[in-house]
């Protein structure tokens, strides 16, 4: 699989998104593309595999060798949101239907490599986010396609699982597979990729843009808020969490204490039960009815009650809505539909809304997934700001950067 792009340009709705990109890749090579949100990374991948213009309307131009059609036929694109890449209801059927594997025992073996073997017969919709991401990666790398386009393939993975996946990419390069990988975290890929590019305003550049060092500096400057007197105590006890189809309980005799204004981080490997625990705690809190609390799920869209940022905040606090929009850097977006907001903006809007509604406790699932370093900084700063005003946070995440603002850390692995 060798190809070359010259002056490759993509326009969506007339707007220039990918601007005269030059890129070449040989058999068994891998390149990494990093860059801020909205720079055009995913658009580039989508136009290489034909999603643009075949599914999403847009125009693609430039020189492609051997041909654009050839690229469309030889590539597979692993979508940023791995759920949508999964087609069938069972794990075994997903692997057998979309790869070259012929027997269940082969499927079992590859699942085993990604610590998924006990899920062979499971319903795919019950898998955790990281499990889905690993399953999607297996499909993408075991099809007959030679060019594999991976859009943030480690976003939902803890460090050991991400390292395992990255090592696998290295092995597959040896078998002649070529990769274009989009990821925010450059350092973890350095050992595997042949070249690193940054995408800035639709252009590919080789030098790390200033933006990155600024964002990392800001992230590194974050620290947990100083501990204050605990004005209010929230105590949760969970006797057992057990799925109807599971033999063993996921968790037993769990106890959690949160103080007002405190950020508690629940961490642990992918599949340990972070999301399930968070949702259980949120449900308990609703049933209890005494604590004013809310859940911000990993898909923040589900949080909203208003169709625009302005409406969302007006519903919460009409007098202060424009102040909140301003405080969370959303003034210019106040009247656009919430669906049109980026993930980072959605999370910040949810935080602004939680603050405007005066919750005592916020349950937040994976607040930094899919965010570039600067947006991650903005979200973490937002959480810290809301916490400093007295709201307690219970956050489920595998992202180590959350340790920067956490007052307390619970490792769920210790409870299994």
């Amino acid at each position: 699989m060798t190809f070359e792009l010259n002056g490759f340009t993509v326009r969506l709705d007339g707007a220039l998104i990918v601007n005269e990109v030059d890129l070449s890749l040989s058999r068994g090579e891998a390149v990494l593309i990093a860059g801020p949100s909205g720079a055009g990374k995913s658009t580039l991948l989508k136009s290489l595999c034909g999603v643009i213009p075949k599914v999403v309307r847009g125009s693609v131009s430039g020189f492609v060798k051997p041909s654009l059609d050839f690229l469309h036929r030889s590539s597979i694109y692993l979508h940023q949101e791995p759920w949508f890449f999964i087609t069938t209801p069972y794990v075994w059927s997903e692997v057998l239907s979309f790869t070259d594997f012929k027997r269940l025992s082969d499927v079992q073996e590859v699942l085993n490599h990604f610590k998924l073997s006990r899920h062979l017969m499971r319903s795919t919709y019950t898998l955790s986010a990281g499990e889905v991401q690993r399953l999607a990666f297996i499909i993408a790398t075991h099809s007959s396609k030679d060019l594999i386009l991976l859009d943030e393939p480690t976003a939902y993975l803890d460090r050991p699982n991400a390292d395992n996946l990255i090592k696998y990419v290295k092995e597959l390069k040896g078998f002649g597979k070529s990769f274009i990988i989009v990821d925010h975290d450059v350092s973890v890929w350095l050992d595997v990729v042949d070249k690193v590019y940054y995408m800035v305003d639709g252009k590919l550049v080789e030098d790390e843009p200033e933006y990155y060092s600024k964002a990392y500096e800001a992230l590194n400057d974050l620290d947990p808020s100083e501990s204050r007197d605990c004005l209010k105590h929230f105590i949760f006890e969970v006797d057992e969490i057990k799925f109807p189809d599971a033999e063993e309980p996921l968790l037993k005799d769990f106890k959690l204490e949160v103080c007002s204004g405190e950020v508690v981080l629940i961490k642990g490997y992918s599949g340990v039960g972070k999301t399930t625990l968070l949702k259980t705690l949120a449900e308990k809190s609703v049933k209890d009815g005494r604590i004013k609390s809310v859940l911000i799920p990993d898909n923040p869209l589900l949080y909203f009650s208003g169709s625009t940022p302005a409406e969302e905040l007006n519903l919460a606090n009409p007098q202060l809505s424009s102040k909140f929009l301003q405080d969370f850097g959303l003034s210019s977006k106040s009247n656009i539909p919430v669906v049109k907001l980026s993930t980072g903006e959605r999370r910040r809007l949810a935080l602004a809304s939680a603050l405007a509604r005066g919750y005592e406790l916020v349950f937040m699932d994976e607040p930094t997934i899919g965010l570039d370093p600067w947006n991650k900084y903005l979200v973490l700063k937002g959480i810290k700001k809301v916490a400093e005003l007295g709201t307690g946070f219970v956050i489920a995440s595998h992202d180590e950067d959350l340790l920067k603002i956490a007052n307390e850390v619970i490792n769920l692995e210790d409870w299994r």
Partner: protein
Amino acid sequence: MRIGGKLSSLVKYASELIIRSLFIYGDMESRHVPVILNLTLLLTQVVLVNLSAVGSLIALFSTLLTYVFRGASKVLKYASILASIPTIWYFITSLPFTLSVVKSLAITVNVFTLSLATLAFLYFINPIELAYLMNRLKLKEVSLYPVLTWKAVPHILKDLKTALTIASMKNVELWRGLAITVVTVEEYSQFYEEAQHAKGVFQPKYWYSWRDTAITACLVMINLTAIYLLKLCF
């Protein structure tokens, strides 16, 4: 708001019932029985219900046996509660017409049996088999639909539950929770289209379980015998 809260809990409970009685359990041998046999079983149950009151009871018994002998006793509880929803509705609405509790009860048993039998059919059906058959019949284009539906429906129901939990936590109207679920589903359909387009070729593989096929065939035989005897007697 209190009525809204109750309604919200009800919708969440109904979603959970659908999830538990159809989707939550992964794949198993009993889902590897030819769809035509499953359909025949359902048809014999429908015929029995239409024959007579005795037929109805036999059909109900046959449906219960289907759950028990095919390893789905755990699901029976949830499926029965789900089947009770149309049943209770029928019972109440039929009363003014029949003016007799006994007659209404008879209708009720029929509705319950048919609902439970349909749920059993849906539970044991395997969308991979449908896709596999469609592929063999050269209907490649549409073969993705049954599998995607089975994959997406529980996903959406799960999100609906989350959205409703949030709506009640935020103390906003129920419809706002429903509206954001619709918006989310619209976004999902765009993502599904994008993600599925650039995936490899779909070549479903499937196998049949002889043991479970034999059990189902026995249930069909029992029903056919009952139909024959009932026709002979009445």
